[in-house]
């Protein structure tokens, strides 16, 4: 499935805290096919479960419910009973594992139970090692990876990578948001976007991504676009590869860089109009760290959707026409390539 077809949605709690009906309407208006119904605060649960049968969720391809994260009024059994209504509708339940006191209560949810990794405020269930224990107790349970929690616990994203390797086969959905060291949720930052892009190749394309960034309806579209770029960074990377050859910022080397590449195309008999072949021959550069997955331009190109591919081709042709204008001697020198 092409990367642009990743499915994004929002948690109702991020859109309108305590008002899931309003949030659902906002998310529907945005044309999103994914929603998580938040009952993070326990008082929200009875109202949500009472209304569940009457909620029109038909436009959504994926719906989940976030169980309360802390119980004081309701007993664990009450919560499990209330959530039973969702299981009948085959709606998965996202659970913070520190809520579990009696595992037997939750075992009946089977594969509809999604265990979420926690943030650093907790003393357990933050790392792969700590999560192994809970999955051993719930062998059928699935995994909700909160990338913001994982990043807070380990900003290098090493822990997130380990979780995806260990529990990738259980991965059912992803939570994403901006999260500072005080565990306050915010919009995705540029730094968070970069961090998430480092592990995006490990997240299957069909796993829904739920945004927990608190945003207004007006800012929802912008947040969504930003998240799409974070989890599908391939187009941006290929643009950067094109620029490294055709639009090098170091003016003194620009001409030399373009000429070297055109010589390569000349030797292989490749025309600039043969877009895919040109992209395949672009040198894959840029700094990457030990342990990073090295993606060649061929790998990157394969990850693009048809729309992104067309977008990239337009970008490439624009760069080529600028080169021809800026260095008029090059089309004469490399007639075959520019033909």
């Amino acid at each position, binding site marked *: 499935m092409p990367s642009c077809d990743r499915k994004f949605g929002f948690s109702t709690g991020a859109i309108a805290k305590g008002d899931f009906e309003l949030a659902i309407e906002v998310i529907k208006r945005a044309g999103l096919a994914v929603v998580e119904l938040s009952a993070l605060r326990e008082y929200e649960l009875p109202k949500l479960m009472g209304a569940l049968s009457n909620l029109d969720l038909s436009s959504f391809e994926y719906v989940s419910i976030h169980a309360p994260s802390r119980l004081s009024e309701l007993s664990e059994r009450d919560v499990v009973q209330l959530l039973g209504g969702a299981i009948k509708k085959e709606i998965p339940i996202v659970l913070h594992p520190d809520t579990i006191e009696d595992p037997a209560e939750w075992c009946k949810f089977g594969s509809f139970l999604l265990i979420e990794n926690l943030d650093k405020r907790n003393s357990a269930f933050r790392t792969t090692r700590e999560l192994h224990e809970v999955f051993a107790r719930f062998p059928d349970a699935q995994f909700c990876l909160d990338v913001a929690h994982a990043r*807070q616990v380990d*900003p*290098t994203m090493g822990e997130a990578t380990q979780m995806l390797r260990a529990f990738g086969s259980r991965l059912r959905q992803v939570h994403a948001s*901006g*999260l*500072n*060291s005080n565990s306050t949720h*915010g*919009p*995705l*930052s*540029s*730094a*968070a976007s*970069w*961090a998430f892009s480092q592990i995006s190749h490990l997240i299957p394309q069909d796993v829904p991504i739920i945004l927990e960034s608190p945003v207004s309806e007006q*800012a929802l579209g*912008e*947040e969504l676009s*930003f998240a799409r770029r974070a989890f599908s960074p391939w187009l941006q990377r290929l643009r950067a590869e094109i620029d490294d050859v055709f639009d090098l*910022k170091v003016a003194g080397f620009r001409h030399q860089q373009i000429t070297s590449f055109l010589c390569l195309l000349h030797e292989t008999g490749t025309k600039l109009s043969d877009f895919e072949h040109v992209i395949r021959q672009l040198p894959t550069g840029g700094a990457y760290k030990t342990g990073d997955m090295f993606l060649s331009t061929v790998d990157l190109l394969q990850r693009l959707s048809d729309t992104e591919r067309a977008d990239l081709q337009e970008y490439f042709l624009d760069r080529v026409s600028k080169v021809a204008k800026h260095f008029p001697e090059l089309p004469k020198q490399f007639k075959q390539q520019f033909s």
Partner: protein
Amino acid sequence: MLQQKVNGEWKSIDKAIATAEDKLSVLTRLLVPPGNRPIAEDASVVFFGSLARGECTSKSDLDWIVLIDGQVDEQHYRTFQTVRKSLIEAQEIRPGNTGLFGGMAFSHDIVHRIGGEDDTNRNLTLRMLLLLESTSVGDDAARKRVVRAILRRYLADDPSWTRKSDGKIRRFLFNDSVRFWRTMAVDFADKFHDQAGEKWALRNTKLRFSRKLIFLASVLACFSWHLHRPKQDSGEREQPIDLAQAHFDDYLSRPPLDIVADELLLGGISDHICNKIFASYNEFLSIIDDSVSREELVELPRELAEKSKLFQRIRELSHIFHQGLLEWLFNTESEIFKLVRDYALL
């Protein structure tokens, strides 16, 4: 308001304020991602100097840091590089601009290392500048948190602090403000020695005006806890230390020129004194804003200072500025004089 009251015509100050606002808008467009989203969690891009004082001139340097107040994250370095690259590409800074500014700074040292051998010159300078002349573009939360944490340390760890809101001058903060002013003056001499007098005249000019101005603002902030301290609620539920922190935070959130102007208005200081202070400062800004004059100050060697009409004019203006401050702060009838006498001298 002060300008209207004293019928002053301080066009260079007005122009510098407008230039600073324009510059901040440019930097915001340049550095803040679309949708006003954060560049990174737990970090603010902080600017100091004339931009933060709200008195920018056409040739003002851009002093900036990425201030980090959070757990270690390698992304912070990437954030710093992104900011630096954007500023270089927009020709706002030069590529080789390094030193105190143009890097990353971490809140822990700034807040925890006050005094002692570990409080380096850089640490002291960053701390005081954060309090006295800092602003940020984009998400300001990290800078605000650090400013409040610095104030908290000065207040909570002041040995003279009492539980009552008695309006006593906070000596810890006051002494460090004085230390910073003296450090700036000593550093001027040190740079003169180290850099063989390079940019001597420009640095001297800044010491006479803008550096003195931020010292004055810090002294006024310390005195303000006595002069304008807020009243505690009748039940005394509010902790005096919380009250003091909020007071200093609010007081110092204004640019230094505003702080001085407001104190002159509140103190009912004569138009004559106000004009001495502000008209001389206005002319200083006018000179600094003029590219020819600024260039002369950059190039002027110490031995030719006596022959430079420009530098002699600056000396003259600085004496007027200084005289204005003396007439205001050493008026023996005023309340502020008692504070100057009791705290600033010994």
